């Protein structure tokens, strides 16, 4: 930690100080744009009086208010996104480098199709990936990224028609770890979905595997095309690791695992965003920001240690 503090002072802090000036400027612009939105709303609400007072058409006033409002909202998003990218480049990227990890804001190279193929992600229409991190710890190779999946749903608009909305179906981390045991079959460990839900899931995921650990069985449901290999991978010791992990993360029902092509694929569904570097509305120079980021990155190593991925036997 002391090493990181001196690294932070030498390599990150100067950049962050520069960025802080820019952040203040951005926040001022955001507030100004917020005022524009407020005015646009007022104009839209009182468009009749305003059009009469100014002497322009009622439709023109409404369209102008709408354009101004949407323009301001889009500008806020653009400013925030630009600032966020800069913060990640200044803070997240060098912190990962310090830890010996490769970081890329763009996660286009992350092998998402592997998660889709094993069907541990919900059905979705749109994918947004970012923060691709890769590296190795204690001889275990890994890579991960943050994912947001959405699905288009049609809803009734209350006037007899329908409107299409994008509904979030997954927000969280996708992680791939090298698994120490060789295997050939496909085995999935998914959140338990009650008696009926598990049976329905069986149609999609294959044969269910009933295991001896009642605590594990309460949290997870296992599907595999090889009953013996599923038990070879899910030894009593490894099942305990998986239940302990769910308890530790308070994520019962949010963790899905797949054993695929010599790797352990993990989908960790968490509502919070990861590796963001903190709020843009508070000063950037606070050390808590870096500490919080380190804490988030700790999860990568914690998974290796808690799941004992360095231990080949898992006996």
């Amino acid at each position: 930690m002391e090493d990181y503090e001196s690294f932070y002072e030498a390599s990150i802090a100067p950049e962050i100080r520069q960025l802080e000036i820019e952040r203040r400027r951005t926040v001022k612009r955001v507030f100004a744009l917020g005022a524009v939105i407020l005015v646009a709303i007022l104009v839209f609400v009182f468009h009749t009086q305003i059009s009469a007072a100014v002497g322009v058409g009622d439709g023109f006033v409404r369209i102008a208010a709408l354009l101004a409002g949407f323009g301001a909202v889009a500008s806020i998003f653009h400013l925030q996104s630009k600032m966020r990218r800069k913060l990640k480049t200044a803070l997240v990227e060098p912190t990962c480098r310090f830890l010996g990890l490769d970081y890329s804001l763009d996660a286009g190279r992350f092998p998402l199709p592997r998660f889709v193929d094993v069907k541990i992600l919900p059905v979705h229409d749109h994918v947004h990936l970012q923060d691709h991190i890769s590296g190795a710890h204690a001889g275990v190779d890994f890579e991960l990224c943050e994912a947001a999946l959405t699905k288009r749903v049609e809803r009734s608009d209350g006037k007899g028609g329908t409107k299409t909305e994008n509904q979030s179906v997954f927000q969280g981390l996708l992680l791939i770890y090298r698994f120490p045991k060789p295997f050939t079959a496909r085995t999935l460990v998914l959140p338990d979905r009650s008696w009926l839900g598990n049976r329905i899931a069986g149609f999609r995921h294959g044969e269910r595997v009933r295991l001896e650990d009642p605590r594990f069985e309460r949290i997870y449901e296992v599907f595999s095309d090889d009953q013996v290999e599923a038990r070879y991978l899910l030894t009593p010791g490894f099942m305990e690791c998986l239940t302990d992990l769910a308890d530790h993360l308070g994520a019962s029902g949010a963790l899905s695992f797949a054993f695929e092509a010599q790797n352990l694929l993990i989908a960790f569904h968490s509502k919070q965003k990861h590796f963001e570097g903190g709020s843009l509305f508070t000063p950037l120079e606070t050390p808590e920001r870096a500490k919080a980021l380190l804490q988030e990155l700790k999860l990568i190593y914690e998974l290796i240690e808690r799941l004992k991925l360095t231990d080949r036997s898992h006996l």
Partner: protein
Amino acid sequence: MELFVGALIVAVILIAYAWYVVLIRRRNRALEALSSIDVQLRKRHDLLPNILKLAQSFMSHERDLLTRVTELRNEARKTYDASNPEAVRQHLEAEGKLQSGMRQLFALAENYPELRSSQTVLEAQQSFASVEGHIAAARRFYNSAVTELNNAVQIFPGSLIARQVGVRPLPFFELEDAHLREPVDAGDYLAVH
């Protein structure tokens, strides 16, 4: 009244048939699990000659043990009738004895540093650890299938139907002592410290 009795008879026949289906399914499942154990045990048997050959060159003083392990292997390799619970019990017991003999062999191998450090032995121990892991997994699968079968066979009215159709409970694949309840990790005995 006649309609009621007729409906009752049909219901009883349907329940008996459903139970029969469950019994046959579970018996087939247990036999499938037993055959998956045999697949894994065969891997163990195939590895053993190499290990014994290596051991003979270093452990000439342990001739009795090596001979006994060879005999146990031959005993365990004998064919048996999977539909006969007594034959299954004897087969699994023979495997238990072989595993016990092998544990002894690995324990004694501790005293032979040349054997422990041989590259061939190191490779053999890796294959062996993997095979033992698979045997433990197959045993869990088998015992789980046998639990389901035995429940269906022993609980009324399953016990009546099972007797009629000749489905019998199968024995569990249990290990002989507490140490054997964990899979053998040959690495524990042969690894270079």
